[in-house]
């Protein structure tokens, strides 16, 4: 995978648009979902994901494969996500109470499942959104993008232990926030 990415980047550097399309196709889902979970907003995630690949294309001529391509890619996502968060003057308030979720009058069994699923998803999103930015991104990269602690440390330019500490603290916070959900489901 990594070798393929490097080869594709080499071709992109030479102006091969097809190679760029392939690169986008390989990573778009992971980049978009990371941005989506981090920002908890699909539109913002779309903007961030697009901008990420635009930057990849722009930087292709100067790209030196010193690190893994994915590490480099997620560093771009991280910077864009943090910039976007900074642009938000006020923190996004998620609907935590049941009143905010539209409730059907007489839900059928399948609808009830969907509703329950939505509620759980909202609870998870809200709990993750409460985490500090660095902690949140470390958790998402570790949990959903399958990154090891040392790779995340490279993205954050910090020690592996610092990343471990962040993830462990995040786990404790999430346990406090979401620990009761297992009983509800």
């Amino acid at each position, binding site marked *: 995978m990594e070798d393929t990415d490097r080869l594709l980047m080499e071709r992109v550097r030479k102006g091969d*648009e097809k190679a*760029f*399309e392939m690169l*986008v*196709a390989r990573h*778009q*889902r992971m980049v*978009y*979902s990371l941005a*989506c*979970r981090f920002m908890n907003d*699909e539109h913002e*995630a*779309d903007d961030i*994901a*697009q901008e990420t*690949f*635009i930057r990849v*294309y722009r930087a292709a001529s100067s790209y030196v494969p010193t690190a893994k391509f994915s590490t480099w890619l997620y560093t771009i996502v991280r910077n864009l996500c943090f910039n976007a968060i900074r642009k938000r003057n006020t923190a996004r308030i998620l609907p935590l109470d049941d009143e905010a979720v539209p409730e059907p009058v007489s839900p059928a069994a399948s609808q009830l499942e969907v509703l329950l*699923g939505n509620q*759980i*998803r909202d609870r*998870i*999103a809200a*709990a*993750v959104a409460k985490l500090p930015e660095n902690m949140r991104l470390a958790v998402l990269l570790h*949990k*959903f993008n399958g990154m090891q602690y040392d790779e995340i440390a490279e993205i954050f330019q910090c020690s592996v232990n610092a990343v*471990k500490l962040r*993830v*462990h603290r995040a*786990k*404790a916070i*999430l*346990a*406090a*926030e*979401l*620990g*009761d*959900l*297992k009983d509800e489901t």
Partner: protein
Amino acid sequence: MRTRECTGVRDLLPRYCEDGLDAPEISAVEAHLASCSECAEFRNRLVSSWNLLDSWDVPDPPLGFSGRILARLHEERRNVWLRKALPAAALLLIMLGLVWLSVSSDRERSDNLAGRTLTSPQQVVGQPPASEEEIIATLELLEEKEFYDNIEELKKIDYLPLVDEKENGRDNRDNRSQALEVYSS
């Protein structure tokens, strides 16, 4: 009741769940969990909340995601080309304008000259030629002027009886004439 030991074990639990502890630590944690139901419950919450994150689905990137990126890149490239081409075009126009102005003014001047030679040939032809005496007188005047201009050089000659330029209220030109007379005699 939560003890100091509970706090210590809870700090270790995230690493315990990741198999990140060494054998003595594992033994200590397991011994505590066997005797403390609260910490055992916390361990369960830690695991269940982390596993619950797996149910957090996010949508795929919107349709036409890569197409929009490519469109943006094409747009960007076009803008870059325009940004480079516009100043060049403006410069070219300015240069062309300057060349046109220069050519038209040259033509006007030559037309005027041609007009003059055509309209007043008699004035030039009909003027009487200067006599030899007049030419010599003019040349002498010129030489004299040159001599006056070089009077400073004459002052350096020891035996030249120089007259103070301010003497008797005469002006510089009179002094020069006097000096000339003395020198020529």
